């Protein structure tokens, strides 16, 4: 029996233990599931809240990045502001509200306001943005149904002087909680994605421009424009070594903080049009410097080579003439200094159309300037549709190719930068050196010739003692209403480099339809219009750029004895 019972006892003991184990396992599983279910329930039941202790404190409304100049002056910033909206259905007396609001905001039409408030709509914008004073006045009314939404407004403290560069923004998506601003012109449009990036909101976009310099250039240019009764003017001041645009002014300009007004007339005459980066003009004789540099670089001539310059050059049916009498034979240097069209055309022929085009392309005359503005991306120079030898001849003295002043500044900077390509930029900071276009010797030779233009050529009025200005004038007649060129309407340009002994800056000044009436006869040539304005700009700007006049080196230092007694 015991033999029989023992295994039975054993079996029941094992069975009890197995049951217990099973229960334990089930229990623990149930507990696990209960924990999961409980946790899920807890998550579902509680309100989602932002973690109070987060990693960054600056989360919230999207903020657009700022724009500053090279010294950190604010050019574009944000201000918190409000927009006024209404819930008409909670208003007791909409007509009374409309009358009261009409008194606070005289610029809102009363009829449309009434229509908004008395209609079936449950929501209506009334005014965006609202100033703090207006907000207080609306608060004082104490009417129900009027609410304020948060928004940001963009402020341009630099005002007129930077208007064309910073551009503008418009409200893309408007909400009661915030407004999304999108760039619609200038830097604001070109760097829109960068300025909107919340990661980079704390880092402003630093431009190469210098606000005090910009203001000085604008003041001088505006003065010159008024005095010469020009209808427009532009100036570009660029660093030779880096291509940084330190100043870029286009007149007439506008107040970027005011509401845009509709402009009637041609787009090129609008104050919003950027003449320096967007405008394309035939820049006249300023191209002769480039032609001469190409001819010297190509090795077909040197500065002293004599060229036959008859008073007229015939090419097929076309004739190329001079603006004033020239000697029958001139050196390459004098072709630039005295500004001979025939001489330049002959140089272009010696270079050959294929090489001439290659050089122009290397100088960036075939592409948009690459400046960081939304407008300049579309400003591709206007080239002749069919490029013949005649095109090369006329382009050699600046007719037949229309480029922006920025293009010209970049080409002159390339020439002055020992012949290394300079690409214009509005951003501050060093750039990778460009490829070689001209040799160092050509660059030196052309700087010497450009200096001669100021010493004994057409730009004598542009010489500022101590700054060795060198450059080239250009007076291009505008295309008249009936085709052909109009003698009385010119674009006069002075393209200059200073100091020529060690080039630091390129300055391009261009005036649209200037007339100097100080003398007996009205004069329109660049030497009397653009050049004096450029000289004044150099005088005003160089102290701001921390440049000192360079004294003429003492060639001989005589040791004189001062006895004092005599």
């Amino acid at each position: 029996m015991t033999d029989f019972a023992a295994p039975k006892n054993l079996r029941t003991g094992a069975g009890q233990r197995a049951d217990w184990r099973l229960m334990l396992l089930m229990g623990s599983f149930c507990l696990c599931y209960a924990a999961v279910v409980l946790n899920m329930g807890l998550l579902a039941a509680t309100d989602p809240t932002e973690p109070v202790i987060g990693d960054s404190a600056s989360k919230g409304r999207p903020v657009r990045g700022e724009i500053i100049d090279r010294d950190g002056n604010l050019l574009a910033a944000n201000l918190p502001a409000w927009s006024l909206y209404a819930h008409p259905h909670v208003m007791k007396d909409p007509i009374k509200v409309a009358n009261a609001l009409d008194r606070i905001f005289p610029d809102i039409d009363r009829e449309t306001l009434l229509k908004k408030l008395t209609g079936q709509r449950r929501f209506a914008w009334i005014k965006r943005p609202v100033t703090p004073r207006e907000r207080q006045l609306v608060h004082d009314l104490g009417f129900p149904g009027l609410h304020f939404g948060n928004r940001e407004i963009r402020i341009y403290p630099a005002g007129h002087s930077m208007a064309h560069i910073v551009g503008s923004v418009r409200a893309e998506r408007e909400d009661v909680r915030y407004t999304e601003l999108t760039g619609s012109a200038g830097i604001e449009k070109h760097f829109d994605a960068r300025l909107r990036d919340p990661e980079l909101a704390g880092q402003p976009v630093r431009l190469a421009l210098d606000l005090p310099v910009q203001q000085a250039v604008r003041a001088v240019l505006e003065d010159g424009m008024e005095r010469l009764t020009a209808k427009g003017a532009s100036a570009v001041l660029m660093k030779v070594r880096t291509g940084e645009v330190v100043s870029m002014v286009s007149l007439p300009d506008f107040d970027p903080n005011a509401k845009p007004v509709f402009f009637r007339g041609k787009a090129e005459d609008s104050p919003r049009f950027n003449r320096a980066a967007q405008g394309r003009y035939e820049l006249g004789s300023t191209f002769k410097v480039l032609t001469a540099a190409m001819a010297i670089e190509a090795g077909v001539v040197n500065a002293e080579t004599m060229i036959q310059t008859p008073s007229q050059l015939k090419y097929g049916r076309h004739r190329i003439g001079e603006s004033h009498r020239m000697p029958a034979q001139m050196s390459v240097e004098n072709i630039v200094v005295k500004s001979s069209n025939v001489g330049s055309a002959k140089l272009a022929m010696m270079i050959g159309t294929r090489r001439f085009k290659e050089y122009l392309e290397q100088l960036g005359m075939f592409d948009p300037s690459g400046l960081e503005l939304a407008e300049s991306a579309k400003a591709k120079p206007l080239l002749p549709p069919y490029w013949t030898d005649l095109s090369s001849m006329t382009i050699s003295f600046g007719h037949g190719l229309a480029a922006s002043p920025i293009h010209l500044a970049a080409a002159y900077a390339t020439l002055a930068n020992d012949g290394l390509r300079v690409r214009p930029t509005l951003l501050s900071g060093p750039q990778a050196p460009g490829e070689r276009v001209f040799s160092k010797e050509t660059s030196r030779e052309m700087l010497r010739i450009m200096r001669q233009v100021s010493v004994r050529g057409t730009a004598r009025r542009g010489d500022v003692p101590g700054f060795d200005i060198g450059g080239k004038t250009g007076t291009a007649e505008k295309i008249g209403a009936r085709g052909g060129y109009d003698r009385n309407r010119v674009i006069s340009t002075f393209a200059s480099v200073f100091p020529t002994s060690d080039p630091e800056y390129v300055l391009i000044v261009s005036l649209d339809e200037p007339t100097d009436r100080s003398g007996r006869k009205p004069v329109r040539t660049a030497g009397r219009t653009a050049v004096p304005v450029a000289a004044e700009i150099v005088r005003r700007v160089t102290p701001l750029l921390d440049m000192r006049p360079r004294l003429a080196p003492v060639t001989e230092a005589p040791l004189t004895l001062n006895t004092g007694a005599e």
Partner: protein
Amino acid sequence: MMRHGLALLALTIIAIAGWAYSVNYNTMTAFDRVRELRGQIAEEREALQVLRVEWAWLNAPDRLQRLTEQFASQLQLVPLVPDVLSHTAIVPFPEDPATIVGIAPVIDRTGLIPVPVSRPAAWRAE
């Protein structure tokens, strides 16, 4: 023995519960404080931003120019032009002309500049 153990356990549980309660409320007040401070910081930031923009606005070149023109008679400011700048090396030493023995070329970063040279003091003693 068992009874003592149970009493101790109950006391421990009460103590822990009390501690957890206080920690919970301390955390909540700390959160409230953080939220309050965040709000203050945001307000201060906004005020800072407004002041920064106002500063830039009051120093706007257009405004400064208008003001200098308006108060020209009191301020008597003139535009800075290169004619008023010079080099320190050009300024002659305030010496007795009799002691100047000659003019020496001095190399400045801008070129050679003639500078009057006077006899060293040791010579003058003779």
